[in-house]
């Protein structure tokens, strides 16, 4: 009697362990499924579309089976570059101010306010962009139309700020106070301590913050779809409409028959996007790892 009970308990604990294990590895399963679906369709795409025409092609015209990736890549690079150019000074600047210089009460109010930005849905940001920022950009630069790479980039920059500020500020906070005391004891002012001791010590964390912000910018969809004008052409100006990788997928995703060339082409650019963000986040995480070691 007793032994059968313990047998049952053993069996139960075995089942529970299995059950918990399956849940534990769910993220691997999902990530694997995503990658598998992307790969499967990409392979099918490249089987019937020469890979050099994809990566070397300069025109994206799905209706005529021209899938040149270059215009989309240029569009993504252009918006991302402009966004990061705006986001880094703003993000790192406010992180230094909040983390090092602001009085305690100010810091307790400023940080949550900036973090609220992370929760605003991107479609709302895109909406505000259409209604407020696109006309503004149009008037400032005297353009014909306000839907440009820059318009999208400004909004993307702000969307990446919560990530950049939050992680940079953590890194700055992680710098041991002994460093500050030592520097001050040697006669350095508070500002000198900040930019000669604290910021360099926290630099790997700041790099991580920027990388993770970059990941957010590259992957953002709705705001760029609504704001950048979606012309799939190669331009080298921030004041022209461009089309990004993400916007292309969102705009054309349901467009062709399942298994069609266009359908699989979208998975191919999805795969490229996946790999780019994967790489960026991987590098970012490497740097955050080092931050933890400082502590």
């Amino acid at each position: 009697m007793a032994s059968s009970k313990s047998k049952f308990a053993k069996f139960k604990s075995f089942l529970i362990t299995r059950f918990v294990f399956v849940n534990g590895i769910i993220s691997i399963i999902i990530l694997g499924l995503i990658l598998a679906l992307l790969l499967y369709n990409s392979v099918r795409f490249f089987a019937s579309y020469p890979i050099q025409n994809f990566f070397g092609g300069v025109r994206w015209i799905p209706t005529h089976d021209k899938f040149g990736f270059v215009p989309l890549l240029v569009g993504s690079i252009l918006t991302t570059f402009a966004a990061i150019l705006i986001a880094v000074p703003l993000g790192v600047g406010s992180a230094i101010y909040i983390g090092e210089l602001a009085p305690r009460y100010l810091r307790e109010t400023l940080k949550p306010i900036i973090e609220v930005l992370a929760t605003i849905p991107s479609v709302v940001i895109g909406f505000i962009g259409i209604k407020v920022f696109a006309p503004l950009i149009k008037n400032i630069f005297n353009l014909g139309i306000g839907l440009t790479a820059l318009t999208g980039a400004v909004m993307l920059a702000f969307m990446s700020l919560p990530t950049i500020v939050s992680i940079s500020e953590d890194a700055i906070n992680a710098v041991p106070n002994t460093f500050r005391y030592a520097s001050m004891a040697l006669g350095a002012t508070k500002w000198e301590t900040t930019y000669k001791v604290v910021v360099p010590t926290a630099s790997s964390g700041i790099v991580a913050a920027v990388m993770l912000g970059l990941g957010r910018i590259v992957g953002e969809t709705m705001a760029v779809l609504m704001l950048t004008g979606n012309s799939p052409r190669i331009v080298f100006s921030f004041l022209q409409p461009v089309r990004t990788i993400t916007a292309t997928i969102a705009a054309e995703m349901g467009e062709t028959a399942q298994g069609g060339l266009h359908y699989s082409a979208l998975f191919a650019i999805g795969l490229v996007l996946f790999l780019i963000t994967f790489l960026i986040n991987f590098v970012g995480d490497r740097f955050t790892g080092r931050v933890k070691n400082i502590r």
Partner: protein
Amino acid sequence: MKVKWLKFLVIAVVFILTVTLSIGCKTAVTTETTAAAAVAETTATQETDTSKASDETNPASSKFNDQELVVSGSTTLLEVANAWAEDFMAKFGGSITVNGGGSGVGITSLIDGTTDLANASRPMKDSEKQGAASKGIDLKEYIVLWDGIAVIVSKNVNVNEFTFDQLSKIYKGEITNWKDVGGADAEIIAAARDSSSGTYEYFLESIVRLGNKESQDEYSDKCLFLQTNADIVAQIGGNENIIGYVGLGYLKAAGDTVNAVKIKKDSSSSAVSPSVETVKDRSYPISRELYVYADGNKMTELAQAYLDFILSADGQQIGIDVGFVPVK
């Protein structure tokens, strides 16, 4: 400490229950007490004729109440499809979902079986017909409305008419300044629809390629490719020096925020402005049929009733109200 959390949980659960219950009540109210709802609806409605609709609700509504219908496709037809669905549901019940996406999306969804009816602003391509046949779809085609494609420009542009050739060159990027077509010295911004749109294809074939089947001409990649007709109206209305094209239905909705221009086939023919009358008598040169496609093998009672409705006098009148031209 634990008690505090329990309290929070209880409050949260109560909140969720209240919300769900109030939704439940709402459904019960709308389905059961139709008379009261009808009164409430009439008082709440200002411009639409729901009052008339609600009177007819009572006998017919039960028939389709458990049935669902999904309609997807052309954004040219999106607003009229939405109006059809709204009116149909008010009169006969049923639950109709309307999706946009573009003609390509609609036809694809029909082939994949994810939609019941596909709206299209172009006829199905041969490749699409083959795809449908290979999936065992008994394709049914309905011409539901006529439509003209209106060429519109920003209010500041003082060009009143275009030939096909001029339009083609503008969209191919060969004419880039308004002064070359009789306007002021300013750069032309050409707005086109994105490639999932039937309007994109139609305009490409009949205007950019001038109807030449052999032609391989393309839109210039300097064009803006906008997602919807509404987007084109909004951008042209809100900016200067832009040219674009939209379905005739959108001209009415756009009101005086944009200028519609006259079109002539070549310099010898007379210029015609887009309107219901000129499309009806076929004198406006850029006009076309609008289609709804269905799968004959999966035709439900509701789908058939909806199709009958849009082809009826009432349905066609809704089309006219939105700005299209009736089939008959």
